[in-house]
């Protein structure tokens, strides 16, 4: 068991890494660099998940966010060339900062005032998970089976929708369709 002080140091280093790279996403001017910092943020959040003993979720985070959604973002940047240099601020830049700070202040105040251990009357206890992936599998195919099936339908619609949006006005696509009709 790693002692309390080591855990503290690891927690603070990972969370500060995450937050600094998250702020850099907003402050960096080049869109590619901001994407790079976004990937670093995802990796940092995966580290926090591991500290919370959620290993499968951390891997899923790495795989889906850092591995595939970032690729999607990269390709989207490459398909829209003028955006690549330009990660400019909108006219709501200062209001954005203000709203962010106010929201953060309010929520932090709420969290620190609110006594979570009085929520249920029992003192909060830590749960150390063991072999999460098997339990998640049992839950997914047992209790949450309908959501599991619906997820596939959601993914299907996302695929169909995105394909039809991207290809909607491509000339070669239409030509190929026309040729197909003639046959």
């Amino acid at each position, binding site marked *: 068991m790693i002692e309390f002080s080591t855990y503290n140091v690891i927690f603070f280093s990972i969370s500060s890494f995450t937050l600094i790279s998250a702020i850099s996403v907003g402050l960096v001017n080049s869109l590619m*660099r901001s994407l790079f910092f976004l990937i670093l943020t995802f990796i940092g959040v995966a580290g926090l998940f591991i500290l919370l003993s959620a290993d499968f979720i951390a891997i899923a985070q790495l795989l889906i966010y850092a591995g*595939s959604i970032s690729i999607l973002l*990269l390709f989207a940047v490459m398909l829209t060339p003028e955006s690549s240099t330009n990660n400019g601020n909108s006219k709501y830049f200062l209001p954005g900062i203000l709203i962010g700070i106010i929201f953060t202040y309010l929520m932090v105040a709420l969290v620190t005032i609110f006594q979570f251990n009085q929520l249920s009357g029992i003192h909060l206890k830590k749960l150390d998970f063991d072999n999460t992936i098997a339990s998640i599998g049992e839950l997914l195919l047992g209790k949450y089976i309908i959501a599991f099936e619906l997820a596939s339908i959601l993914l299907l619609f996302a695929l169909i929708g995105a394909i039809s949006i991207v290809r909607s006005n491509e000339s070669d696509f239409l030509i190929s369709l026309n040729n197909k009709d003639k046959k």
Partner: protein
Amino acid sequence: MSLIFSFIPYIKRLIVLILILFGLAVGFILSKALFDLSIYSNAVFDFMIDKSSYNVAYFSSSLIGALGIISFIGLVLLVGSWVERRMIAKFQIRVGPNRVGIFGLLQPIADAIKLMQKEVLVPAVADKLLFFIAPVAIFIPAILAWAPIPWGPNMTYLNINIGILYIFAVSSLTVPIIFFAGWSSMNHYALLGSMRTVAMMVSYEIPISLSLLSVVIITGTLNLTEIVLWQSSNSIWLGLLIPFSLFTFFFSSTAEINRTPNDIAEAESEIVAGYHIEYSGMKAGLFMAVELGNAVLLGALVTSLFLNGWFLFGLENYIPPYIIFIAKTVAIYIVLIWLRATLPRFRLDQLMNFAWKMLIPVSIINFFMIAIETTIITNLDSSKYIIYLFAIINIAVFVGLIILWSKIFKIDKFSPEKIAPIFAQKIGGIKAMEGTKSVD
């Protein structure tokens, strides 16, 4: 007297023989002492826990494992490049590096020093931060993926129960790094090369995951050590039980690590050098080194997933298990070199079509078939023999698939006689061709 003189020409061989025997004896003694390297790590742990806190003990004992992995990778990067160049030279009937040191063994070190002395050029328009980070960061997935590899019975650096997914997730981080390497050069060729590479790597990650899925379905675990133990307890290699998954994994991984036949990343004839065109000196060397390290990593993965890891028909009781593991890994690496010397590069559109229209649909069907087989195995008691039956069925299906593919691609049994001499026919020279066995 003349008898003794007649031995003189063989005395060199005799000395070599004696040396080999001596080496074997030393190796035997050493193998007793170094049979299980984990005892040293444990000894350090026990030693440190008396002196100081648990944290320091844990840290120092894991540091030994980490340094072991890092030094193994360093050794592989040095020796591997020599092996590869010598082997390729043998395939092409030349000598290969043979000037620096005995058999040219010091050639990799000379190369490294040469690369370090080279002038480092950074394009004026490049994104300096990402340009510097990319060659350093590309090592992170390549080294981190070594962590859950089981070297021996107790020799796993990171014994987690999601080992396969860990390797899959960590190695998928290579893709954005390669993209950043190409993008930050601000070069048409580099950008095009990185886009093509990313598109290909992304396509081939899906067959990899589906083939790993069938491994997990059979063994019921994601822990690499348990997968190796499953294979030995059922006394079958997974590569024989699910040959299609082995093929998919191997072929797709060659795409993932940019090796021939799928080295789209550095298609010299089309896009000059691919994503690392602007890199010079040691940074370019780092990209090459990482490619080599990934090839050996693929060998280690195939060994532990499909070739029963450190087990070799009872030999693991006499030789240190990690030696067997490394031998199998090197064997896979040599197969990769063999492929590189033999096969031409595939075209990108062929590769993409092969991934999406062949590998992915067939992998889905394959893992369903394996799921059905697993259900039958677990519900029947006589699982021992039915596994062999399924192995035969799977191999038959795999061979049938290969024949089907060769029919689709119109490869007629690979025999040159059957190919009609079209060109010769066109120019009217078919009469002259009669009786000869040549191909046009």
